[in-house]
């Protein structure tokens, strides 16, 4: 048997040599010749292909020199607006329910059961509250964004976007489909990382994975919107305030795209140098998307993913937040001591100790950054507005402004740098885990985690230093 196997392999090698390099060519030609013959017997064409005209008309607009980009930007704005506006009410309702009703109920049960304050605090104020926060903030936007994205994909528009943007990505040494994975990242970076599977070449996939963090995921939008409104919008006359605030958020998003391209260019010229892979993009005909099916799969998928993530990642984060705030060593809580320790570095970066601590504990979930910041600021200032270690939200943005500037000592620089740091910091733990699962490489997961935060530190340091030198702050 073994002898025959060896003989076969030898014959194969010999024949292969005889046929030469164009084996694949000849094979493919033979297959197509056959296919043409069979198709020729079966296919008949008649009449005017009216659908082709409609397709061409749409393409003429959506990929034209004049209308292509505006159409894309418009589409993006519509998607973002629908997500933000559509998520407002459900998020508020969920928050009212989970962080209000259920929260109170849990405390009532704890009191009735005679549970010690620290157990109630740890489990309810720490673990439960963080989980509830992530769910109420993240679930509604994701349940809107991803169906919209999938609808666009099924409709056939997304390949056109890759078609329009490819040149930029080519110049950056990346694959045109990275534009799609980048967009997916605006919903959730972990999903964006998984979506890089559409890129075949491992080198280009890695570039797409590492830069995906510069897409601002749903969890970071509330932070940007809030800070943009309070600090940036507030500097403008009231009539223009919301417009300026919105523009600042858009500016940060655009900066994210710029960073994506710059870092891709950097990576493809240094650590991930290599040949551009074979690019080809099929542009399927526009097809009416199956709305109900998409909604159903997307919503169910997304809901389950967010819930799972909230429980696995946010819960421990909540526990940590509560613990560091309530465990006292030598007169003050760990949190207070950490804030003081981090303050010098914070100031150097135009931020402060509270912000840095909040980001460290919020590695699992971006959604709890602002609540943690508020809580820590109030705790450190010994304000009665917040109980120790309990994350909170303040209804009134004016009140938030007062707390941050009055008690926290925030300035315009702090606000601006927070927005920048929000863009340029390490991926959330779910994303880090996903990167590991997709790459199976400790080295690249580490780079993907540290590169953005290193950039964040550098950029914040530069803006802070420049602002101080110019005497603006």
């Amino acid at each position: 048997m073994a002898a025959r196997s060896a003989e076969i392999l030898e014959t194969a090698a010999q024949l292969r040599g005889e046929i030469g390099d164009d084996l694949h060519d000849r094979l493919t030609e033979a297959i197509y010749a056959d296919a043409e013959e069979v198709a020729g017997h079966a296919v008949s064409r008649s009449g005017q292909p009216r659908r082709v005209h409609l397709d061409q008309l749409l393409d003429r607009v959506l990929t034209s020199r004049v209308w292509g980009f505006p159409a894309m930007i418009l589409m993006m704005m519509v998607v973002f607006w629908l997500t933000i506006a559509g998520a407002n009410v459900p998020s508020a309702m969920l928050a009212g329910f989970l962080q209000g009703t259920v929260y109170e109920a849990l405390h009532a049960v704890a009191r009735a059961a005679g549970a010690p304050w620290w157990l109630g605090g740890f489990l309810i104020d720490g673990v439960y509250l963080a989980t509830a926060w992530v769910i109420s903030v993240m679930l509604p936007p994701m349940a809107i964004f991803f169906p919209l994205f999938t609808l666009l994909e099924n409709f056939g528009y997304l390949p056109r976007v890759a078609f329009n943007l490819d040149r930029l990505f080519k110049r950056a040494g990346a694959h045109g489909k990275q534009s799609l994975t980048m967009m997916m990242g605006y919903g959730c970076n972990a999903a964006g990382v998984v979506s890089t599977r559409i890129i075949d070449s491992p080198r280009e996939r890695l570039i797409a994975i590492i830069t995906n963090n510069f897409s601002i995921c749903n969890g970071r939008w509330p932070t940007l919107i809030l800070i943009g409104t309070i600090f940036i919008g507030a500097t403008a006359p009231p009539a223009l305030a919301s417009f300026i605030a919105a523009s600042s958020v858009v500016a940060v998003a655009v900066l994210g795209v710029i960073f994506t391209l710059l870092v891709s260019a950097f990576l493809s010229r240094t650590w991930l140098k290599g040949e551009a892979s074979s690019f080809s993009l099929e542009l399927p005909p526009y097809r009416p998307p199956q709305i109900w099916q998409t909604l159903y799969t997307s919503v169910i998928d997304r809901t389950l993913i967010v819930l799972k993530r909230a429980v696995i990642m946010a819960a421990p984060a909540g526990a940590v937040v509560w613990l560091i705030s309530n465990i006292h060593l030598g007169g003050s809580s760990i949190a207070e001591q950490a804030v003081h320790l981090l303050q010098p570095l914070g100031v150097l970066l135009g931020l402060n100790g509270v912000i840095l601590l909040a980001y460290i504990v919020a590695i699992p979930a971006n959604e709890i950054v602002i609540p943690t910041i508020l809580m820590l600021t109030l705790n450190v200032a010994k304000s009665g507005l917040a109980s120790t270690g309990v994350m909170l939200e303040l209804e009134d943005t004016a009140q938030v402004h007062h707390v941050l500037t009055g008690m926290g000592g925030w300035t315009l620089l702090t606000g601006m740098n927070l927005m920048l740091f929000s863009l340029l910091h390490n991926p959330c733990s779910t994303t880090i885990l996903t990167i590991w699962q997709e790459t199976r490489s400790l080295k690249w997961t580490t780079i993907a985690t540290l590169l953005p935060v290193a950039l964040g530190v550098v950029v914040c340091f530069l803006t802070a230093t420049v602002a101080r030198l110019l005497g603006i702050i």
Partner: protein
Amino acid sequence: MTLSQLEVGQIAKVIKVRSENAERRRMLDIGILPGTVIETVMRSPLGDPVAYRVRDAVVALRREQAELIEVQSVAQETQMEMKR
């Protein structure tokens, strides 16, 4: 001439595929072989890539790839015939 020189709306026949290795396989997979009819459908707003119709499907190729495909333009009347 090469495919990259084919104007929008024009039809040509592939004469030779100069691409190599993985690139070549890709072209063959899509159906770009000597003798295949190919039409330029549209250009991207930034000029590159360009979409071509091959065997009833529309595929976008970058300039570097199109430059490796030798084609021969098809006569005017034949083009009209093909479009109908």
